[in-house]
């Protein structure tokens, strides 16, 4: 079985994120770049599937040069090879262009499963897996809290508001996984050393058969008109509980007409 796992480098989850005034894109330089947390679950799930069924895992990422660190991280966890979609022309791409570039990078490589984290912690749109499925004409089995492969079928439990739906598709298929599907492994020292020698192919926009003008900020189908820091919240009232704390909250809620 051949599994592609798509990962994204994002600013550290704990860092304050901001937009750059000059082009309203995310300032990726001011914070440490990390493997998107939800993608760690995708990498782990890919490795587990290969451990159970045999095959290989290819890490696919689109991003600037430093996104290579993220590919290495996934390789150090145990993935076999990497594909880095890298081109200055991609800067500022919206989800539409990102899905186009990823779909081109993924097509024709014989992947049985293409696995994503269900969203990135920076843009948080949660649309790229569905868009890639749309572009490749593949079934999407997304928001999985459990993934099982049997023969030529993938079956998932799709997390819903109050439980889950069971969804089945024939391979090849696009999967996205939610947090808690598994416990991602830490790279071992051996894994980190081995990752340095694993092959990473780089693909530019021209290699994908896309026009540079079809991707990037200029080609986006939506644009930021304006942005501003949220005005700070006015300080509220904080009291120490003197045995009447609950009653005091009830009084506040009554004033605010919640009771």
């Amino acid at each position, binding site marked *: 079985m051949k599994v592609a796992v798509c990962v994204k480098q994002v600013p550290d*989850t*704990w860092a*304050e*994120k*901001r*937009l750059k005034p000059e082009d309203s894109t995310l300032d990726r330089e001011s914070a440490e770049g990390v493997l998107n*947390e939800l993608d760690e679950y995708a990498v782990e799930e890919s490795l587990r599937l290969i451990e159970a069924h045999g095959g290989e895992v290819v890490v696919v990422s689109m991003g600037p040069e430093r996104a290579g660190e993220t590919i290495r991280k996934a390789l150090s966890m145990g993935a076999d090879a990497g594909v880095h979609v890298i081109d200055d022309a991609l800067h500022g791409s*919206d989800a*539409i262009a990102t*899905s186009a570039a990823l779909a081109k990078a993924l097509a024709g490589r014989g992947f049985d499963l293409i696995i994503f984290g*269900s969203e990135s912690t*920076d843009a*948080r*749109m*949660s*649309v790229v897996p*569905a*868009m890639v499925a*749309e572009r490749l004409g*593949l*079934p*999407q089995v997304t*928001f999985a809290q459990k993934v099982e492969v049997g023969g030529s079928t993938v079956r998932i*439990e*799709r997390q*819903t*508001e*109050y*439980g889950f*739906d*069971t*969804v*089945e*598709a*024939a391979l090849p298929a696009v999967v996205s996984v939610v*947090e*808690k599907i598994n416990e991602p492994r830490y790279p071992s020292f051996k894994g980190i050393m081995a990752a340095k020698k694993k092959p990473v192919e780089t693909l530019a926009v021209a290699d994908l058969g896309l026009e540079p003008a079809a991707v990037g900020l200029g080609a986006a*189908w*939506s*644009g*930021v008109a304006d*942005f*501003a*820091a949220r005005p700070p919240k006015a300080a509220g009232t*904080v*009291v*120490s*509980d003197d*045995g*009447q*704390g*609950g*009653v*005091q*909250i009830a009084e*506040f*809620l009554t004033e*605010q007409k*919640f*009771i």
Partner: protein
Amino acid sequence: MAEILVLVDHSEGSVKKVTFELLTLARSLGTPSAVWLGGGADAAALAQLAEYGAETVYVADSADLDDYLVAPKAEALASLIADKAPAAVLIASTAEGKEIAGRVAIKAESGIITDAVGVEADLTATQSVFGGSTVVKSKVTRGTPIITVRPNSTAPEAAPAAGTRSDVAVSVSDAAKGARVTGRTVAQRGGRPDLAEAAIVVSGGRGVGGAEGFGVVEALADTLGAAVGASRAATDAGWYPHQFQVGQTGKTVSPQLYIANGISGAIQHRAGMQTSKTIVVVNKDPEAPIFELADFGVVGDLFAVVPQLTEEISKRRG
């Protein structure tokens, strides 16, 4: 006036509140038409859509829309967009809503904006990003704006309209029938509202101390008719199911009232709740960063404060 399509969010035949919010918002942009995909569009449901201003209700009733995941709904909506050429399409910003929107945007060669908290008359959308720290105004520059809107962004207001039913023929391609829904499992829901659309959310974190500690959180929630949320510390520890996690890697909520109990307020959690209109905090650590967000906070033991609050609310309601 320009037609605005509103995708109806419905489950088991009942229309979710967010749909009435979207219809209310759509009235400020043009003439709303509701789009019902799948079964269950009975007279009562249609009457509700009319009550909130749907001039027309397009009904695409086919089992294929319910039996296969997302792709058939995207096909049906995209074909309606091609047919009606609306000025914009509004969809609830839920997991499925965003997936439908994403696929429709590609099919309709249109820009997409997700997680809007407001849309102006010129279709400029407001988003609250990076955990609510930045407010962004964006506009779709190509095709039909496909905008997903977060629940609780608009107060639903009734404004009766015709609500004329218009049945739409559906033919779902084989390609869209790739992912079949073979079962639906509903865990105990306890009659609480959906976390994403609840007007009040009561949540618990590390300070709750264990699964059994959530009892006081749930009791307060039930007194207020609220949904229950949990911080990542609580869901990671297995004290509360993961789908109730509020935060950067969980759900983003923006209720009228958010009551945080025993939650320190790391950025991971704040990112999921800091746009709540009113925030009440109970925490024994006076240094907890969550107090920076509090409209009203009590430094104290939640196991004393919360039950007292629950009892006091019951008393005041008589």
